């Protein structure tokens, strides 16, 4: 099959899968098999593109003319390739986890859950492979809308309230600001195609670029720059697999991915580097980076803490992009991958703790590490990767990001990166510390009762050890393995992204 058709197939696979999920809704085992098969085939399809992209090919396919002179086009370039691989790869792991989590949590409407999940993945793939800003915008909006039922899955009042914030901010910013920016771009540049080096050809003055950059950056609400980050903590009411895949990987990464795309291909790195005095974006993202870390420190709810950590880590990527040099782009791109693996592991652990011990607040988790050793091991690996310590993937991206700030001549941002890493340690390590060394206050659920209520799907029991469901553990195993593997195979990502960053 030609590369062009493969692009279409990679978007169609989850869509077709979603139809089968609906059809097999009455038979949970079959339905979940369909999900797994779909995710694996999507990963294979996306993966089959990798080699040609590394070779320098840029397959492009145009579906239809949307407006005169403006098409719906899909094309694969290195960044999109990376995002596509991460999203589809982690979907497999996440599906394994979902099955364990959703079953033992007795969630309702599981067919709807898997259905919208598949569609979200299709739109994430659409974002990844979009060939121009219009296509990207369309997929971006579809992604917002089809994740809404996932966020409000429980249907409880707080879920509805959060859903309102989620939809209000994401739809509001994208229609109110991003669309305006896109139409403005179209009006002044006459094209929306992604082009290395930007499409403006020095047509715009510094001030105009500043305003346009503002419209784009705050229009891309999914990148969660402060002060439009509120939707991300709000979305944590969703079931944990949703938080894990969508709000650590697909949705937020679609946001920062769009930021990278806009900076690299719409503005052009050099254009942006040319007006560094006015580059407010660096300061805003630097501010977000530190502030979000500080807020994370104050959160007792584990998922909320992870959410603020995500906001901070997203700001790393935006900051890397706004430093406007090749190394920054490289660091930002890499961080998409590294953070995805690290954060999904952490969310998996948070969900596993919730399933196995029904605890959501960190202060209640004293001594839990001794009861759930596997979960806490995975948590440790994920934390270290997010903090950026070798031999874990996160160390590479942070290295490049710091290098980039030095190269750009902003030592202040180097300092910010370092302080933030310390803050990472400060908000992640105590969780492990309390889990391993503090003594449990009380046990709300007696051991016998737990064993009585559980079966194989519910969780493992070996004497004192009462672990999360085996499928959840399996997923955590794979994702933490990924964190380690990325340290040793980071050069693959480097080679993939080198042409985009201009580092070859």
């Amino acid at each position, binding site marked *: 099959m030609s590369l062009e058709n493969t692009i279409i197939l990679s978007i169609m696979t989850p869509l077709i899968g979603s139809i089968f999920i609906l059809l097999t809704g009455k038979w949970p085992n079959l339905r979940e098999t369909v999900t797994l098969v779909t995710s694996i085939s999507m990963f294979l399809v996306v993966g089959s593109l990798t080699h040609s992209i590394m070779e320098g090919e840029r397959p492009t396919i145009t579906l239809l003319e949307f407006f005169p002179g403006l098409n719906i086009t899909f094309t694969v370039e290195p960044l999109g390739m990376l995002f596509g691989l991460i999203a589809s790869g982690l979907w497999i792991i996440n599906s394994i986890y979902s099955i364990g989590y959703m079953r033992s949590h007795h969630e309702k409407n599981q067919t709807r859950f898997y259905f919208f999940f598949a569609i979200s993945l299709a739109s994430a793939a659409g974002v990844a492979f979009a060939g121009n800003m219009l296509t990207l915008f369309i997929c971006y909006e579809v992604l917002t809308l089809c994740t809404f039922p996932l966020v409000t899955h429980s249907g409880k009042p707080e879920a509805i309230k959060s859903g309102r914030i989620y939809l209000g901010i994401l*739809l509001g910013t994208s*229609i109110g600001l991003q669309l305006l920016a896109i*139409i403005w771009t179209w009006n002044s540049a006459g094209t929306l195609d992604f082009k290395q080096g930007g499409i403006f050809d020095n047509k715009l003055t510094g001030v105009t670029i500043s305003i346009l950059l503002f419209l784009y950056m705050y229009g891309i609400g999914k990148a969660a720059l402060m002060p439009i980050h509120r939707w991300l903590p709000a979305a944590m009411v969703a079931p944990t697999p949703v938080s894990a895949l969508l709000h650590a990987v697909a949705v937020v990464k679609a946001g920062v991915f769009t930021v990278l795309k806009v900076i690299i291909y719409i503005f052009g790195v050099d254009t942006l580097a040319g007006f560094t005095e006015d580059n407010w974006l660096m300061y805003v993202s630097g501010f977000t980076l530190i502030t979000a870390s500080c807020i994370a420190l104050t959160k007792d709810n584990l998922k909320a803490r992870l959410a603020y950590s995500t906001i901070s880590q997203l700001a790393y990527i935006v900051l890397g992009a706004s430093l406007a040099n090749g190394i920054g782009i490289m660091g930002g791109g890499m961080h998409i991958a590294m953070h995805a693996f690290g954060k999904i592991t952490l969310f998996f652990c948070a969900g596993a703790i919730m399933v196995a011990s029904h605890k959501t607040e960190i202060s209640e988790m004293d001594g839990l590490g001794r009861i759930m050793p596997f979960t806490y091991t995975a948590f440790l690996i994920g934390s270290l990767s997010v903090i950026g310590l070798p031999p874990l993937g996160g160390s590479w991206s942070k290295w490049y990001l710091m290098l980039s700030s030095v190269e750009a001549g902003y030592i202040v941002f180097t300092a910010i990166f370092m302080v933030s890493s310390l803050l990472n340690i400060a908000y992640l390590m105590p969780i492990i510390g309390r889990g391993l060394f503090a003594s449990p206050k009380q046990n709300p659920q007696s051991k016998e009762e737990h064993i009585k209520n559980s079966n194989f799907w519910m969780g493992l029991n070996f004497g004192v050890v009462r672990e999360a469901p085996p499928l959840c553990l399996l997923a955590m195993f794979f994702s933490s393995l990924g964190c380690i593997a990325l340290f040793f195979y980071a050069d693959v990502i480097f080679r993939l992204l080198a042409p985009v960053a201009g580092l070859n």
Partner: protein
Amino acid sequence: MFEFLTPHQAILIVVIPLLASPICLIVRHSGIAWLIALVASWISFAIAINLLNQVTTVGPISYLLGNWPAPWGIEYKVDTLSAFVLLFISGISSITLIFARKSVYFEIAEDRIYLFYTMFLLAFAGLLGITITGDAFNLFVFLEISSLSSYVLISLGSSRNALTAAYRYLILGTVGATFYVIGVGLLYQMTGTLNIADLADRMPELSDTKTVLISLGFITVGIGLKLGLFPLHVWLPNAYAYAPSVVTAFLAATATKVAVYVLLRVYFTIFGYQIFNKLVIDELLLVLGLIAVISMSIVAIFQTNIKKLLAYSSVAQVGYMVIGISAVTVTGLTSTILHLFNHALIKGGLFLALAAIFLRIKSVKIDDMAGLGKLMPFTMAAFLMSGLSLIGVPLTVGFISKWYLILATLEKGWWPVAIIVLIGSLLSIVYVWKVIEIAYFRPVPDKSSKIKEAPLSMLIPIWILVTANYYFGIATDYTISSALSAAKELMGVAL
């Protein structure tokens, strides 16, 4: 078989529903009357499709009534714009009529149903006539045919408030139509002709005279009343809210659109866009449009009756169309013409879905919608999907018109306008989502409720419109090229 009729298509499209109307009156049987109306409407629809094809391939069609040559006799003229408007009016009417049978049985006493179809056909014929005629006074006659019959249609609503709503519409509608006649009279006084093409020929040399400018003012106010142009919209919310559901859907989708069409015709065909250099009507329209978009969207947010909510939203949407006109550019007019079509699809879908809901729960109050997402999944899904189109989410028709409107304002460098238009969309998120949240998240109040999904004869027409919302939102080629060439015709730009 019917080849001999082909040259007469332009008159047949109006005459068939016009004649079918008294036939309905004579048969006095609800079922047969419905069938006659349905067949007449579909024939008109078929002719409209044919006309648009012919116009795009061959060029404008001119039909002389009774073969009297043009400036003296009445001429029917079909160009891209009128063919496009004819197409969606007859399309919406045909789809609404499929839907109407069950809904009308439910809402109107059976011994009056044949009268309902009589009036429906008259209104339909009137709207088609307005669109197709090339004669300014003939236009007035059709305007009154459609208006008088719509007053009757509105008064057939089940609540007694329908009567007062119809009465107020009658007063304001008549004042509007009379203003239009005054305007036309003044034009006739200056030019001695009523033929639109002829008027256009004679206008340039007269466009400095006060009489002509005053006539423009009268026509603007007159049609503004019909259009529901802010602040002349006061009749509209009640009329839409208390009319029978089918009537609301039909009028909301077509009547105001035809009024916008008349405005386009008068401004750009008769007077020519240069007239805006003489009289600052464009700026007036811009301001009124902007106020309409913001204020009416805010008012819509606070409505508890969903029909009223959508009615206020319609006034806001008319604001978008008027803003498009006020740009006086090809892109601006394209956005207006596109939105005529797109908004007909959007509001048609929303009001029909609401009509199906009314059939089942006997209410259009927002609080009674609780749990409908579960009880009537297909109807509610249609409402949701049309609602997304109203907001202007990509892949829907609403997005297409919004895109062009913003492009038009940016081309003119009107920054604040673009921002206000977008704020309008954000407000529409609020009022659409208000309904969606209650329907999907609030539990069914009465667990034992026996509310069923709407019947298939309603779901099919609703979903035809919803599909059209998405089909034309993705395969935009047909609508955009038609709207673009219509806009170019109006602006006198070479195609």
